[in-house]
């Protein structure tokens, strides 16, 4: 028994209807796949971006805001912590590493982040793909996607909270808030991390403080060797000061910072530090706590979308099946002729079912591709907007979802096939 010649003939006869059915099923599948895969990609990528931020300490306020500003570099005005806390933490036995994070300035739309060279190299984990890490005030190391070249002078501008910038572009706001006469020299580039930090320019925290007239937190400032930003004799570039950079900050006056990232030595230490710095004018938390809350919200949204897309899929499937039942009814005569020519009932049933199952399978496959394409497109948009690289991959969940849809569709497709099975031949021949 070879039903394929008849199946292909039926599909050819359906033509536009068949295409419409495939498109409808594909749409239902694509929506479901895109939602599921995108949500998982966001979850994975955002968690990966927070990998090196074990414990965050900031001034009391919104934890979410601190996470968004520190890890995802979404600009916002944050309250400032006492800078002396950096030294205290550096001496704490429970702390393996500590680094300040200061932001607010921009250059060509890229965030300028003040921190330590150690944290710029994520505490030994990252080796620059080009050049080296900054070693003096006035030097900068570039994120992988920053469109400056090594040796370029980077002119910082004061960022405006809430003002969205476009990476690589100088807008009016940036041009109007330039820190005149100051500039960093790009000395290195970091490898790609797939996080918003790929679009950041990392500079010594001391430089950020000094740009804002806060000193550099070191004794060199009091010794009269304060400022890295003096113009060179040629008037181009800037002369890095010879002052030491990084922890500890031994100056009498250590400027404040919006955030401190801590790498605890142990889990117990992490919890103890969190408990200690949750009071007394500071706020300490694990970014994972905030992410879990965000994921829960994201999960709720996803669940709503999944329910909506499932209903959508069911409605589309029902419409498709009704359409196919109608088509099969219109073709009763054709099937009756096959029976009159000696086709067994099973043959006719197989022709009808196989035709429908093929359409649903084609819709599922096309839907998978469209869903993947949609998810990739959205990932591209998210990356363009935030710098967060979303690693999209079709998972077992999507495959299962599609398989379920195909199975249900195929089983329901038996209905018109069974109707034809029971239909008297002579009735079909007379119609």
């Amino acid at each position, binding site marked *: *028994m070879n039903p394929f010649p008849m199946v292909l003939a039926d599909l050819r006869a359906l033509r536009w209807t068949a295409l419409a059915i495939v498109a409808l099923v594909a749409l239902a599948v694509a929506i479901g796949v895109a939602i599921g895969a995108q949500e998982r990609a966001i979850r994975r990528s955002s968690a990966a971006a927070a990998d090196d931020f074990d414990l965050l300490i900031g001034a009391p306020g919104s934890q979410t805001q601190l996470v968004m500003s520190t890890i995802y570099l979404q600009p916002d005005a944050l309250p400032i912590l006492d800078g002396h806390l950096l030294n205290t933490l550096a001496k704490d036995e429970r702390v393996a590493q500590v680094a300040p994070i200061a932001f607010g300035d921009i250059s060509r739309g890229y965030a300028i982040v003040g921190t330590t060279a150690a944290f710029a190299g994520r505490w030994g984990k990252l080796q620059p793909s080009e050049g080296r890490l900054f070693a003096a005030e006035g030097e900068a190391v570039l994120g992988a996607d920053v469109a400056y070249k090594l040796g370029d002078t980077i002119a910082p501008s004061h960022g405006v909270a809430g003002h969205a910038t476009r990476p690589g572009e100088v807008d009016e706001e940036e041009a109007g808030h330039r820190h005149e006469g100051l500039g960093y020299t790009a000395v290195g580039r970091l490898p790609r991390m797939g996080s918003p930090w790929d679009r950041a320019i990392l500079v010594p925290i001391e430089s950020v403080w000094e740009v804002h007239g806060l000193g550099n937190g070191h004794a060199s400032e009091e010794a009269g060797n304060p400022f890295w930003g003096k113009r060179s004799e040629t008037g181009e570039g800037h002369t890095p000061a010879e002052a030491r950079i990084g922890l500890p900050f031994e100056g009498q006056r250590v400027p404040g910072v919006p955030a401190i990232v801590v790498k605890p030595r142990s889990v117990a230490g992490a919890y103890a530090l969190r408990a200690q710095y949750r009071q007394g004018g500071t706020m300490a938390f694990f970014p994972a706590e905030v992410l879990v809350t965000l994921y829960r919200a994201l999960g709720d949204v996803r669940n709503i979308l999944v329910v909506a897309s499932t209903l959508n899929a069911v409605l589309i499937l029902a419409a498709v099946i009704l359409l196919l039942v109608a088509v099969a009814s219109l073709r009763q005569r054709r099937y009756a002729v096959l029976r009159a020519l000696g*086709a067994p009932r099973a043959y006719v049933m197989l022709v009808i079912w196989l035709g429908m199952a093929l359409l649903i399978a084609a819709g599922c496959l096309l839907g998978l591709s469209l869903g993947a394409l949609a998810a990739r497109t959205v990932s591209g948009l998210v990356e363009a907007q935030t710098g967060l690289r979303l690693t999209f991959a079709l998972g077992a969940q999507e495959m299962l979802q599609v398989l379920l849809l195909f199975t249900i569709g195929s089983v329901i497709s038996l209905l018109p096939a069974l109707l034809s099975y029971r239909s008297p*031949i002579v009735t079909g021949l007379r119609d």
Partner: protein
Amino acid sequence: MRPSALPEGPGGPGGRALHLSGVRLDHRGGDGQPFRVLDIPELSIAAGEHIGLRGPSGSGKTSLLHLIAGLIAPSSGSVSWDGRIVSTLPVAARDRWRRVTIGFVFQDFHLIPELDVAANITLPATFAAWSIGAAGHERAAALARRMGLADLRRRASVLSRGEQQRVAIARALFNRPALILADEPTASLDAAHAQEVAALLTEVASEVDATLICASHDAALLARMGRVIEIGAPAGTASTERAA
């Protein structure tokens, strides 16, 4: 009017290929009342005979063909082929018997318009086998040549009505049937094509020594038959027979 018996065919009881005995077919009308469509006490048709069925519309000619083909079961009585009762066979066995024994030619051809000539001719073979093989293709080509069809790759939808009926006849012959049933095979054709198809049908049936039963109003076609059986009005279901 009382239904009359149909005389036996020339083959006599011993050589009869098809035998209907006490066959009655009742339908229910729109008012729910049953009415008799066919009442055939006895009918025998010998192997290789060419039989015409004549009668007014609604007289039961098509029903008789359906009954012989096992598409409907008689309300009573039996249809036998080569001494074996086929009207009571299970559905699957009846399908198999029909596929192996019968070639059907319809008034409206009922080709599959999306398939080409070759695929239409070989279609019945796909009911039972995955592939028809080289021999099947050769047979299809030979049948097409015999029917005067030059291009096997043409879609059925682009053929003339005469060509379509020739393809339908080739399809009916593909499985080498012993019995060809034709329901108004010339009714949809103009006079020239009708003549051509009538000649072809009777010729090829003779060539393969198949029994041919044609239900038709076409006098020219019926004139080619060895016997013509008159099927009466549905109310009386009187049946008579005369030699053509």
